[in-house]
């Protein structure tokens, strides 16, 4: 909804805005949808002037069609695949996180969602030398843990410091500050806040701020959830960053595990990885498995250095709907 204001386009002065308002035309949509001929008579302006205004307003506010060929060209030059630093997870994700897309990690408590996020952040900042935006909504991120993970990868303290500097952490504990942050990042602060180019935005966890708002008969929560999704998607597309979010899981009536945040959210992520704790191993090792659409099973091992390291990948079935990406060169 865009409210009509004077000076929005040539010919739209204060008098005309007032006249239009008196005729019940308050927004751009109203102008565009109304019968111009009839409106011109009611507001006693020339049909030609009003028609021109309508055309300009439409051009200003409608989305402009782009040719598919141009879009593909642009995509080829801008899309990057970001390795998670974890060969088996990369294999599962078809070589890594894709920029312009939302990837979701869902799993129960202690299934290693946050650890995978830390691993990705460390890999991107330390090895790929790119900036990472880490939005922490649970307070689970500690710098010492990141450092600990970096120390297993690199022994150079300077390198570690630089890498840590490339991870920009936002601690946000409600949906409004999350939205605020996403909108601010989208409106240009993304590149400004971080000197280097940002390649990944991680939200751990997205469900922690959304799920308290859901339920009951209110629609506000759903609306806010869709807004968060929209902000993440447009940011991912416009700035070519990979978005990684974490989600909790719930149990269905039949006992199966299903991703949290309900059906409306389920359409949002492009790829979902389900992490599962599998058995209790001795000596700080716990086997985990991840399902990417229930078709692919990934076993991960959380070693005592704490780095999540998937051991075996068993792609049981390929050709998962909409989740498979092929034909890249």
């Amino acid at each position, binding site marked *: 909804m865009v409210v009509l204001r004077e000076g929005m386009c040539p010919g739209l002065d204060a008098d005309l805005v007032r006249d239009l308002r008196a005729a019940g035309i308050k927004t751009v949509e109203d102008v565009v949808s109304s019968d111009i001929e009839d409106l011109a008579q009611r507001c006693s302006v020339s049909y030609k002037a009003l028609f021109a205004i309508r055309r300009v307003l439409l051009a200003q506010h409608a989305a402009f*069609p782009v040719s598919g060929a141009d879009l593909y060209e642009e995509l080829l030059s801008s899309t990057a695949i970001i390795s998670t630093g974890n060969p088996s997870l990369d294999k599962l994700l078809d070589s890594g996180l894709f920029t312009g897309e939302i990837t979701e990690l869902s799993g129960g408590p202690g299934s290693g969602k946050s650890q995978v996020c830390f691993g990705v952040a460390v890999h991107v900042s330390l090895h790929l030398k790119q900036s990472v935006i880490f939005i922490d909504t649970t307070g689970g991120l500690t710098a010492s843990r990141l450092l600990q993970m970096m120390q297993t990868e690199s022994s150079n303290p300077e390198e570690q410091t630089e890498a840590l500097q490339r991870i920009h952490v936002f601690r946000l504990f409600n949906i409004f500050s999350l939205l605020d942050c996403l909108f601010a990042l989208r409106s240009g602060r993304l590149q400004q806040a971080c000197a280097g180019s940002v390649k990944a935005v991680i939200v751990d966890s997205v469900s922690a701020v959304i799920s308290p708002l859901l339920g009951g008969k209110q629609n506000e929560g759903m609306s806010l959830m869709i807004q968060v999704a929209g902000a993440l998607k447009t940011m991912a597309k416009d700035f070519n960053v990979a978005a990684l979010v974490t989600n909790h899981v719930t149990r269905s009536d039949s006992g199966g595990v299903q991703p949290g945040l309900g059906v409306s959210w389920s359409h949002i992520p*492009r790829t979902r990885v389900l992490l599962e704790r599998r058995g209790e191993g001795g000596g700080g090792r716990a086997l985990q498995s991840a399902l990417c659409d*229930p078709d692919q099973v990934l076993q991960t091992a959380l070693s005592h250095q704490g780095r999540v390291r998937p051991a075996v990948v068993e792609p049981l079935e390929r050709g998962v709907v909409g989740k498979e990406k092929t034909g890249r060169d």
Partner: protein
Amino acid sequence: MTESGAQLFARLEARRCLKDIEKKLFPGDGGPENGEVVELYGSEGTGKTELLYHLLSRCLLPLSAGGLEVDVVFMDTDYSLDMLRLVSILDSRLNAARSSSSSSGSDEEVLGSCLSRLLVVHCSSSSQLLLTLHFLETTLTSRPRVALLLIDSISAFYWPDRCEGGTSVTKQEEKLSKCAELLGRLLRDFRITVFATCHAIRRNYSGPSSFSSSSSSSSSSSDIDRPFLCRPWQRLVAHRLLCSKETTNMAANNNREPKRRQMFTVHCTSSSSSSSSSSSKTKSYRSSSFCITDAGVEFI
């Protein structure tokens, strides 16, 4: 409103009919006629998008590769258009066509001409959707080869609209109703065909979910499959394609049995008003199954 000669001509000139877009999908001999709306409905991971890409690639491909060679406008409200996937589908179909018959032109060229037949619009709110539909009127006028409008998805702004509208249902549905009305007019004027996807918004508690490890009874598709969008939109829809995933027993999958392909079913309900008695609507049904490969949807 005045109309130029070119506009009149673009409006009256017959657009390519998409009745034969996919014979295996629609009941009887009836694909979508000019000016009809097809809705693809289903929950996450039921093959809606793949089906949409299948139909889209059929429209974009040149006649020599078994396509229809028409222009398509793709309205992406979900920001979900995966160009790379679309290109890989087009590519494999072009290759298949090339191996069977020798056609001229290099790969890149043919692919480029396919993609140039596609126009993509991204919309981020329902008001923008409405304005863009108004704007499309000029696009349709200037491009008489546009025969198909795809909307992925029409339900994208359902929750924001519900919230913005406050307590009044009419207010909540106002935007989409306006879009539907306008779309109705565009359909009448330009005789294009519309395909739109619609996401399920309720979980099917009785049936198996996409992640459930032991799926048992097949669901009675009553509650979740009920249309939830506004009445003006429902009235536009002539064919409803209900997508679902065929249930597989995941428990058996763990012991490395031979790979099985995931099957999808699509159930089509067409309501076409017969010409003799315009008031009574006859409904016809058809179910078909498909699986998804690297080359896109394959019907079985």
